[in-house]
């Protein structure tokens, strides 16, 4: 198939940037979206034009490195990561608009590459259980009800890609944060730090310039791992509880 691509290009964080149009031929339906961009980049390189910078690593939907706004949707039209989106989801002759994640808290570094360091800084403020290496009790010392373990797992599948932020009209990272709060809060091991975790993570979230949640739900619709919206309710509930406890 043949496609017309409108792609955001920006030389560095200080550049204003703008949309550029490219034509790409010989796209096969079995290609992944990123392989289609690889083909375009080879063409650009051959013409002496600098290839388009975009992030990707595992290309199997788990590392969270890739992420593009495709026709205005985070990761494009299918519920998956950009690397797992295939060209069979598009039609011959289509025009596709490709932009970087949209969020003040994720500044553009170049073209389609953004800085998501804010996510790491949120985790630093409490997205862990404090247990030094070697000090753990026997793994079977504390049984965990199967349903709790399953819920913890289901939300722990968050890949930290940032689609939730990019999709949110407020630029909120509440889904990302709620997933971590819920993952650790479901487990007995996560209880001792439960209050301080939520308070400190939320403070860092606000400090980074992410917006507040107004229950729009774009985040969960865009999430490639289908993290459910109720993790945000859990986040709010945990925050209320912590504040009642005097945090």
């Amino acid at each position, binding site marked *: 198939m043949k496609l017309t691509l409108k792609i955001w290009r920006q030389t560095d964080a200080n550049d204003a940037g703008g949309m550029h149009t490219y034509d790409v031929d010989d796209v096969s339906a079995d290609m992944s979206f990123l392989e289609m961009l690889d083909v375009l980049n080879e063409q650009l390189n051959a013409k002496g034009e600098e290839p388009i910078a975009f992030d990707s690593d595992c290309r199997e939907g*788990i590392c969270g490195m890739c992420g593009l706004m495709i026709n205005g949707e985070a990761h494009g039209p299918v519920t998956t990561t950009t690397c797992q989106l295939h060209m069979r989801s598009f039609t011959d002759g289509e025009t596709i608009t490709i932009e970087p994640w949209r969020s003040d808290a994720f500044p553009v570094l170049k073209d389609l590459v953004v800085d998501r360091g804010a996510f*790491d800084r949120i985790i630093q403020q409490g997205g862990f259980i404090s247990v030094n290496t070697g000090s*753990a009790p026997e793994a079977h010392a504390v049984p965990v009800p199967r349903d709790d373990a399953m819920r913890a797992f289901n939300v722990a599948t968050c890949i*930290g890609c940032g689609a939730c932020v990019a999709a949110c009209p407020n630029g909120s990272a509440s889904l990302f944060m709620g997933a971590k709060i819920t993952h650790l809060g479901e487990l007995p091991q996560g209880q001792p730090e439960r209050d301080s975790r939520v308070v400190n993570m939320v403070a860092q979230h606000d400090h980074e310039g992410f917006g507040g949640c107004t229950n729009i739900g774009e985040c969960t619709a865009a999430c490639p791992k289908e993290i459910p919206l109720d993790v945000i309710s859990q986040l709010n509930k945990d925050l209320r509880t912590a504040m009642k406890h005097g945090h």
Partner: protein
Amino acid sequence: MTDMPDTTLTSDPSHDAPLPVDTDDAADYYTPGAPIADTKAPQGSIDQRWQTRKFEARLVNPANRRKLDVIIVGTGLAGASAAATMGEAGYNVKSFCYQDSPRRAHSIAAQGGINAAKNYKEDGDSVHRLFYDTVKGGDYRSRESNVYRLAEVSTNIIDQCVAQGVPFAREYGGLLDNRSFGGVQVSRTFYARGQTGQQLLIGAYQALERQVAAGTVATFTRHEMLEVIVVDGKARGIIARDMVTGEIETHLADVVVLASGGYGNVFYLSTNAMGCNVTAAWRAHRKGAYMANPCYTQIHPTCIPVSGSHQSKLTLMSESLRNDGRIWVPKKKADCGKDPREIPEEDRDYYLERIYPSFGNLVPRDIASRAAKNVCDEGRGVGPEVDGVRRGVYLDFRDAIARLGKDGVEEKYDNLLDMYERITGENPYEVPMRIYPAVHYVMGGLWVDYDLQSSIPGLFVTGEANFSDHGANRLGASALMQGLADGYFVLPHTIRDYLADGPFEKVDEAHPAVVEARTSVTDRIEHFLTVNGTRSVDSYHRELGHIMWEYCGMERTEDGLKKAIDLIRTLKDDFNRNLKVLGTADSLNQSLEKAGRVADFIELGELMCIDALNRRESCGGHFRAESQTEDGEALRHDDQYAYVAAWEFAGDGEKPVLHKEDLVYTAIEMKQRSYK
């Protein structure tokens, strides 16, 4: 210590049959060096060695630890766990990764599980059995002291991860569930659906970020290590490039740890992430670190077949699928193009179950891969023809769905089957999946002693980047075990013996060794940007991959390997004269990043072929067509090749020097592997 009883093993006298004298196929390609005499493993009973070493390793006073600078390159399981643990201990740690966050390292993609000798199933497992299975699975080419230690600490890993909140699969009673994996007959694999690597890495990542907040670890993301700094024979730091600004940075330290992963991307197409590379390890190799057994490559049997020339990577389907899926091809070539659902039971060849009745679909990876290649070579492969051959076999869940129900299968494997459907457009609940082997892991890596220290003092190597634990073939669910064993429980003990002599004399940035390292980095970058040729980096990478897969892949021959070496040398020459890299050095430049990596892959590829040429035997994942039994199984030659091949870099254009470390087994008897 007595050997494990094993009903299926037979001693094969042919191992001791002397080869003709003139069998050093690689004689013209290397220089013999002095043997490696000492691996620093303590003597004595194998189950006491680690205890002895931990006790003998000197301690570092807590007040001194913060004066000791530790650089750790890589944030996968082996790197993040080491950085977190060293930080907790109070050392001053700098952690580097090329990704935008430590959480993205490729350990995250491991699907199936992690082994540990917990024996929760009471099915006869033990530390000794895990040790035995790992040595046997590695075809008796690993170092027994290291493997025993790995099995020993495996149980601590599970305790640690559970305490961190890793949500492993559990039974209804709330206790941990296990499954079995290839090459073993017990259930010792802990798992978190098909995303075990992700969950373990996030556990380690969170522990790492906790130390960042505590001020003991500083992270340097989007940084690539491009050179190691060696001062007076000791590793004292690295040169790294800030991949956003292009700035070349000097980072000095008392000790350097490489946890930079494996080099499977030398094959271009592999299940590795796009960025996985050998550069950190290769730059260290060029500075004096021996590279051990580089030809030992694991070709994973269950990957999604190649669909076309645009392919940028291959996707693994977890080996755990072999627990319930059955592998088959049609008995008749004429059936290969048919809808598999129309092929009756009696016309299907469940070839693994037929050839290996004891282990069936759960034979080790190397055996399953070669069997798939063989049936496809016979013309019984399935799926679309690529270059005139159908390269695929069926992995069928029909019987599992009948037995467990669709829900039962979904619960165990849902995300994997979904992923398959997304990539291929076919629904595996209705049509059998098609799989084919792909490069997945490398057992070779930088040589390390028992302390995980390389041949450069002060340079330690952990995880897939080192060579020590898996011999010539790694068992499933053992990579995660090794990465975390090294990082959480081994390195923090062994490295303190080295650091007990520190802090070392301060190195000045103007020191000639630092200047030399910086200059070599900047000169190389300048070179890539000024060749101004006509070919892209990717085109060279692809060509290198073709050469490696064709001649140094699942089956290797003397003629093929010699041809590959010639082709690689020609490719290298062309790369140096005809490369085209656009953009600048002082900005984010992904082509420039790739150029450095591909340059190193080209040099590594040549060494892999020389190593494969030298080893005229078949063992594990290394199959030399010249060395096989009558029924086509790998045939080792223990009398000649029971050694680790540790290669020393001798200079550009010079022949590498081969140092041999003899493998001596005291706790296990070397036998012919048999899974029949």
